[in-house]
């Protein structure tokens, strides 16, 4: 297995996720793009664990999975609350805090 395989796959997934975060207007779609970014990081962690034949990368990946689950729970609760208050989850309409 070439070492660049996993790392390049992670880089491409990260780029796709960054594009989604920048381009999307729907808050749920932005959260999905963040999942893409977190998975790209996880692919890299597993690849480095494989390179060094160590279990520590796996432990980090599992931490990331757990934190991502918590993040999605809180994020979607916030999206639901915003939807209830404003009848819309378009992110560019949330400009109340603009200076």
């Amino acid at each position, binding site marked *: *297995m*070439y*070492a*660049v*395989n996993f*790392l*390049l*796959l992670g*880089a491409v*997934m*990260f*780029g*796709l996720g*960054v*594009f*989604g975060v*920048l*381009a*999307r*207007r*729907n*808050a*749920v*779609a932005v*959260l*999905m*793009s963040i*999942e*893409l970014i977190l*998975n790209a990081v*996880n*692919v890299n962690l597993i*690849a480095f*664990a*494989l*390179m060094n*034949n160590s*279990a*520590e990368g*796996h*432990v980090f*990946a*599992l*931490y990331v*999975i*757990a*934190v991502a*689950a*918590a993040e*999605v*729970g*809180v994020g*979607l*609760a*916030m*999206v*639901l609350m915003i*939807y209830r208050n404003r009848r819309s989850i*378009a992110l*560019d309409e949330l400009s109340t805090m603009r200076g």
Partner: protein
Amino acid sequence: MIAADVNVAQNVGFYIIAAIMVYAGLRVVSTRNVVHAALWLVTVLGGVAAQYVLAAAEFVAVSQVMVYIGAVMVLFLFGIMLTRATIGAEGDLNNRNWAMGIPVALALVGVMAWVIIDEYGSSTIAEPETVMPTEAISDIYLREGLVPFLALSFVLLAAAIGAIVLARKD
């Protein structure tokens, strides 16, 4: 030229799964239907789990399937259903100036690919003899990783309570 310690079948499997994942990822960030985006995301996450199996990380692969495909995607679909009256194509899923994301993402991927190829361009990973034993992972969790593990429990507890408080109607 194929290096001596490269397993061709493993690489072919990797490239097939990676092609599916990249196409599905493109659809996640480009489709006009947010439900379709969620279902394409399932494809990406399943592909990630398959790559973990190829990388001899079976425990992480099973966790990925259970947590992401099992729990997180259900949450996403609930979120979509609860915040969208219309199921179907929508014109306003993207920002007005969404095209600015393309050069940013391309520049980012270009820089990262350059660095990765510069550093790891010719190196190969020796094929592991066995999958990573789950005992090795649990040993780290219950020894040097115990304090972060307990902290993570509190993070999950706080997230659960916070989600209930935020989403509750009153």
